């Protein structure tokens, strides 16, 4: 027979054979996925940051559609994303609680005292395992693991300390996980009171005398802040002062408390008035 005819029949036959096999396996191995999962996934930020507690945005989308998670579970997306998701699923939308990262160390490159010379891996993680060169065993190394891990470019190193951009920070919590010394914490945030966002810039719970020897801006646990503010916005945890962020935004005289701190440990996080876009 003509060679062209043979080739056509051979290829056509093979094509048909494999099409049948593929059609059968498609039927047998079909994966049914609710189309809403795709829509919810599109509405989510897609950063796969893990702030919601799931491994990926796809996981959260699946759980939301199944009803195992809430539409406002994504702290990074905020209220806008929560509303979009609620619209897709046809349910009521709820408010999203905004949190941001707060840094609890004030010992910048000039202030921090060193106890050794460290020539090891220049990451906070490795330095913490070995011990590092900082005299304070709760203080910031300044190698910037938190900066490297931020998916939203919201954190920068200035003079050896991390500075969080309160506008860009989405509260995903990656920097909290990345810091081996737990210097960063996620706290409630009031957007309308930007200038009132303050922190106790110390992470060291040791006694005052010990802290004083290794850092001039460390918290000595004198309790003045708690005493000067009556409403419980400031409280002591061992010998370290802490702020209750659900109360401090309503405290009227936090600036007085800030002034009265003998070691200047309480710092404002925003220097001028900034308008949130």
């Amino acid at each position: 027979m003509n060679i062209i005819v043979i080739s056509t029949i051979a290829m056509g036959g093979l094509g048909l054979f494999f099409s049948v096999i593929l059609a059968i396996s498609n039927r047998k191995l079909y994966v049914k996925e609710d189309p809403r999962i795709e829509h919810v996934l599109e509405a989510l930020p897609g950063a796969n940051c893990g702030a919601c507690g799931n491994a990926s945005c796809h996981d959260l989308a699946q759980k939301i559609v199944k009803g195992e998670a809430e539409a406002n579970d994504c702290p990074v997306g905020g209220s806008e994303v929560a509303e979009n998701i609620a619209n897709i699923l046809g349910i009521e939308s709820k408010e999203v609680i905004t949190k941001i990262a707060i840094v609890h160390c004030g010992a910048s490159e000039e202030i921090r005292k060193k106890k050794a010379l460290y020539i090891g891996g220049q990451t906070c993680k490795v330095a913490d395992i070995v011990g590092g060169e900082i005299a304070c065993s709760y203080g910031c190394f300044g190698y910037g693991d938190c900066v490297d891990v931020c998916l939203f470019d919201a954190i920068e190193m200035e003079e050896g300390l991390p500075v969080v951009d309160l506008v860009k920070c989405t509260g995903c919590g990656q920097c909290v996980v990345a810091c081996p010394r737990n210097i960063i914490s996620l706290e409630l945030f009031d957007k309308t009171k930007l200038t009132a966002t303050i922190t106790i810039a110390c992470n060291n719970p040791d006694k005052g005398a010990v802290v004083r020897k290794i850092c001039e801006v460390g918290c000595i646990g004198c309790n003045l802040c708690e005493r000067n503010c009556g409403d419980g916005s400031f409280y002591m945890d061992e010998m370290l002062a802490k702020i209750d962020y659900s109360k401090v935004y309503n405290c009227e005289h936090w600036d007085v408390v800030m002034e009265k701190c003998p070691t200047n440990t309480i710092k404002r996080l925003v220097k001028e008035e900034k308008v949130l876009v």
Partner: protein
Amino acid sequence: MNIILIFIAATIVNNIVLTYFLGICPFLGVSSKIESAVGMGLAATFVMTLAATVTWLIYHNILVRFNVPFLEYVSFILVIASLVQIVEMFIRKFSPDLYRALGIYLPLITTNCAILGLTLFMVLREYNFLESIVFGFGSGVGFTLVLLIMAGIREELEFADVPEAFKGAPLTLIISGLLALAFMGFSGIISTS
């Protein structure tokens, strides 16, 4: 004896990635984590073995019998594409995490020159049926092996202080070259035609 020689040759001596430089795309793309490297390697091994089997049957029973051996390129690609589709459906059903981890690289096994290359080698070297299966399987094992080695090295490198200009692809390519040099040490252990 010949079967064992073919297997060892395909796995180590004439490794499909490091000696013939086939299959570089998934080699560079999926080798940053050990789990995805293993997944990719196993999927590719399965496709390679099955492809070698089916293409041998088609070549000798259809193409040669009807005197159209020049159709090997087209028909082999058809076979490989269908097999990859089936493997993709299979993985999607039974391991959605692996499916997402491999991402675009799973359908890219189709255009992976390693698979087409090994089927064409099989025809060129005139292996019989059993030899072809072993050759396909051996190539897959060699592919997985090299992928694993590269994934291990790259996972270790994550904590190393790499100069900015070399981070990522440049360093990986240099390491691949060094690995290829190392594997050259195996040449001459076995001589296959």
